[in-house]
């Protein structure tokens, strides 16, 4: 379970909420309302006051790379820095437990991607192919929490449906998902709870956790 306790992403007010295993929280709000920054702060890519717990362990208790292997942020615009997509997939932290090639092949098949794309120059791939490969890259090493920032941005309807099915499968497997999306219909299809980021200074509509002083480290839910 992901628990966010009074995280402070200026200029938003401190936000507290929990996302249970298998639960999807949608973060809504206009562009520039801080959706991406909230997701980045949870992944500890951006410094933010407050606490974030994964199953009672605070992010500061583990090294940041270990935290980001468990709490995975997937940006809207997928980035590729290698010649082929395969080289940019995360290196297996533990070879014995690393995802088998059949798991990757299955994932690519579910995304309607030809496995040969992995070894083609990334610059030859279409926008949609890069976007779907980035989704596969984000989930292949089984993170516990997925922070998805506009995961179907730039995808056609068929690909969008495929990605949504995979998000639902991740939820069934017990992952917590925080979804930032502009698409109200997509939020209706996927989200269990919502967090509205309104204009600064007005409080968000839904802050499930009460605002009592529970800022000590190691607080157990």
């Amino acid at each position, binding site marked *: 379970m992901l628990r966010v306790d009074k995280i402070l992403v200026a200029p938003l007010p401190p936000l507290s909420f929990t996302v249970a295993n298998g639960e999807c929280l949608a973060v809504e709000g206009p562009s520039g309302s801080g959706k991406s920054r909230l997701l980045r702060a949870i992944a*500890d890519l951006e410094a933010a006051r407050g606490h974030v717990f994964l199953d009672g362990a605070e992010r500061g208790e583990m090294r*940041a790379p270990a935290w*980001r*292997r468990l709490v995975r942020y997937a940006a809207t615009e997928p*980035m590729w820095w290698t010649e082929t997509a395969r080289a940019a997939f*995360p290196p297996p932290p533990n070879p014995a437990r690393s995802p088998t090639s059949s798991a990757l092949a299955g994932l690519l098949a579910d995304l309607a991607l030809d496995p040969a794309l992995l070894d083609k120059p990334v610059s030859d791939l279409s926008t949609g192919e890069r976007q779907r490969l980035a989704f596969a890259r984000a989930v292949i090493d089984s993170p516990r929490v997925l922070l998805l920032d506009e995961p179907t941005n730039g995808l056609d309807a068929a690909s969008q449906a495929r990605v949504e099915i995979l998000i639902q499968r991740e939820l069934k497997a017990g992952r917590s998902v925080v979804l930032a999306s502009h698409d109200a219909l997509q939020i209706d299809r996927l989200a269990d709870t919502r967090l509205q980021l309104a204009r600064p200074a007005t409080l968000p509509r839904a802050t499930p956790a009460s605002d009592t002083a529970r800022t000590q480290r190691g607080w157990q839910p």
Partner: protein
Amino acid sequence: MTAYIPLSVIELALASILVVANGMISVAYGLRLERSLAVASLRMVLQLGIVALALKFIFAQTNPVWTLLFVTIMAVATIAEVIMRQERRLKGWRALLLSASPAFLAGLVTTLIALLLIQPQPWYAPRFLLPILGMLVGNSLSGVALVLDTITGAASRERRVIEARLALGATRHQAFEDILRRGLRTGLMPVLNGMAAAGIVSLPGMMTGQILAGVDPVEAAKYQIMIMFLIAGATAIGVVAGGFAAVHLLTDERHRLRLDRLTAPSE
């Protein structure tokens, strides 16, 4: 072999006619370089004149305190020059010092090695120490300035790639490995090119100077070879230390990219 032939002011004045000709070309073609040319020529004459007088004074002293003073001024000038050459600078004097000081320290360490090899009496004799230190620091300065500029520039241009790698669980060193490698190559390239071209395209300045002073060309070449190796060493040490310092200063202990520690690009 003829001995050393001193130059008079008249000969220098005759040589300066060529700079005036250069300025006239600039005026004729509207290059607008004549002002910079005049300032640069004047600066060069003044700087070399002052440094010559300072060296002459220091060589005449027996107290090493004067040598130490000169070395200190060189250290400050080196660090200031590295900082001046950055398009985007790190914020805070501590970060600036940490990233720029390898340029001087690498030159200092390799100079001490050179003194061990040459064994002048006493070991800190300014006639050996100061010119060698100047050559080594000058080269590692260029390398460190290049590696810092490459890394800070690439980090700000490739922010999204670095953060995508961090988000996938990369450490800050893994996320920066490509950029660091590029920075090290850029920083070392001038020295490698210089070594490869030495003697074919150009005769290195120090060897030329020794030959003009009447030294046997083979002896001059030996000195030049030793200095080339030391320059390569000084640049390598400075570039590697500066590169790692830049990566560390652009990230924090939570492996976050900290572009907020860079100033906006200067003109």
